[in-house]
């Protein structure tokens, strides 16, 4: 028995002695074992079926996994993802601030943008930009009516890559606008008031106080959007952009190893989304500053802790002292 070093005795132990820690026999859960075995069996069977498929040529997977065309496609997929997300986030922040603006025109324009770009399929939007030149051979900026400004052929401005970037980025901006707006709204009103009371301008309040706090709410869905974008870039094939999916199609057109190449690019998509997931964790951790008393452990720390606690002594079944000894 341990004596309590200081402080008043715990309730129910006038003697000031702490009753022994509870050591009970844990409830058994036989059905957990049964269901685990069933699920594992089904999964193993599915895997076995695919691996041993009679016409699967696994050597193609190995041959193309690090092939030059596939690697180039992977790089382009990443570039598309980064560019489209950059446009989406930048434009999304602008749209969110417009949506919350006291100026009604700003708010309406933002509302209309979101309604339009969220209400039409992104595939349609990419294809639209890709084919814009058919109806609009020249585009430019300048003063209407006057012959001043800049003009160029649509095809030279909206290359297939730009068509994909516009389609993906402008569509993403509509979703990001809603995410950013939710983040801004989630920040307590008292925060902006306290900042205003110190004499900060509207812009300073937004930049220094509201947006950094909104980040905590904005980052997790933005991470999801980025991961989703990485996969959505495969739609760029309609604009003949040679990213991963297009490359897989081109190769399998020649050698008919369709499924094998789909496996190759799936490995790449999985690898890239996994890396993004790790990045997301550290971003969330960074912007979670101050929201928790302690930062959550990194996966590495958790792994270390697991190593040390995995073999922690299980509660011993020791019948010796009755549970309520030391009481009464």
């Amino acid at each position, binding site marked *: 028995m341990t004596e309590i070093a200081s402080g008043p005795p715990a309730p129910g132990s006038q003697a000031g002695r702490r009753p022994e820690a509870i050591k009970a026999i844990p409830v058994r859960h036989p059905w957990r074992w049964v269901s685990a075995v069933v699920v594992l069996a089904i999964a193993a069977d599915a895997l076995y079926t695919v691996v041993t498929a009679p016409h699967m040529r696994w050597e193609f997977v190995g041959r193309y996994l690090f092939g030059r065309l596939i690697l180039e496609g992977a790089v382009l997929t990443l570039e598309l993802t980064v560019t489209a997300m950059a446009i989406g986030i930048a434009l999304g922040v602008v749209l969110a601030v417009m949506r919350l603006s006291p100026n009604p025109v700003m708010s309406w324009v933002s509302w209309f943008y979101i309604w339009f770009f969220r209400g039409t399929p992104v595939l349609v939007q990419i294809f639209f930009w890709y084919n814009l030149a058919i109806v609009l051979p020249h585009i430019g900026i300048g003063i209407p009516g006057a012959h001043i400004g800049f003009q160029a052929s649509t095809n030279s401005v909206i290359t297939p890559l730009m068509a994909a970037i516009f389609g993906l980025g402008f569509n993403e901006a509509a979703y990001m606008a809603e995410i950013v707006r939710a983040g801004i709204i989630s920040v307590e009103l008292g925060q902006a*008031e306290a900042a205003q*009371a110190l004499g900060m301008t509207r812009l300073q309040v937004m930049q220094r106080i509201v947006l950094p706090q909104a980040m905590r709410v904005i980052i997790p869905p933005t991470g999801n959007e980025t991961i989703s974008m990485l996969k959505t870039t495969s739609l760029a094939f309609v604009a003949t952009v040679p990213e991963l999916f297009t490359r897989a199609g081109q190769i399998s057109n020649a050698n008919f190893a369709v499924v094998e190449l789909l496996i190759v690019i799936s490995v790449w998509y999985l690898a890239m989304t996994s890396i993004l997931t790790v990045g997301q964790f550290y971003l969330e951790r960074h*912007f979670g500053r*101050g929201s928790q008393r302690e930062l959550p452990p990194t996966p590495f720390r958790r792994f270390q802790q697991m190593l040390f606690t995995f073999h922690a002594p299980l509660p011993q079944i020791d019948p010796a002292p009755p549970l309520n000894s030391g009481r009464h």
Partner: protein
Amino acid sequence: MAAALMVKAEAVYKNYGRLEVLRGIDLEVLPKEVMCIIGPSGSGKSTFLRCINHLEKIDAGRLSVDGELVGYRERGDRLYELPDREVCRKRSEIGMVFQHFNLFPHMTALENVVEAPVRVKKEARGSAEARARALLERVGLAEKVDAYPKQLSGGQQQRVAIARALAMQPKLMLFDEPTSALDPELVGEVLDVMRGLAKDGMTMIVVTHEMGFAREVGDSLVFMDSGVIVEQGAPREVLANPRHERTQSFLSKVL
């Protein structure tokens, strides 16, 4: 002389839609005066405080701080709304402490205090930090400069909030129920800091339910109810011998 007053309110009205929150407030605060405002919730005392630094716009009357109108410029017999930049500059000269502290949770105590001098006054970071450390020491939190608000108790947070307001070297401090959200045992440490400020000659308007503080530290006491000042005078006098019936019934419930 009007310019000698720190705050002067003449027939100040404020309404939210059809609800009249302030219905003709007349009030004068001298430099270095500590004025406490008491009254039931919904009496308009917090709203009045927020009008003083233009967090709320008044609808009628005149309200001036240190001889200048709040939120407007008067030229001839017309009022011109001040541009945002001017409103911000004036707010920067008035410190405000909130019931729920409103510390910036993504910044440490030190960063909270340094933020406004660096961003608003464009003070050099080095000197701002030195002053911030001195201020945090003054409110008894020298050890906590690197703590985030979540890691501090309510009383500690409120003391950081006071330091944050003081960092702008305000000529007037507004306290909006600074101890109402605190555990009873933490109220004392905040009141101690405020007592020290009063002794150093800070002009303070304190909306509070702490009658002991009002009696001890206050130079004047105002009792507000449903948007008007019912009674005002020396704190001991008002608290001991309230003349108005409404003051009597309020005090009988809270004392």
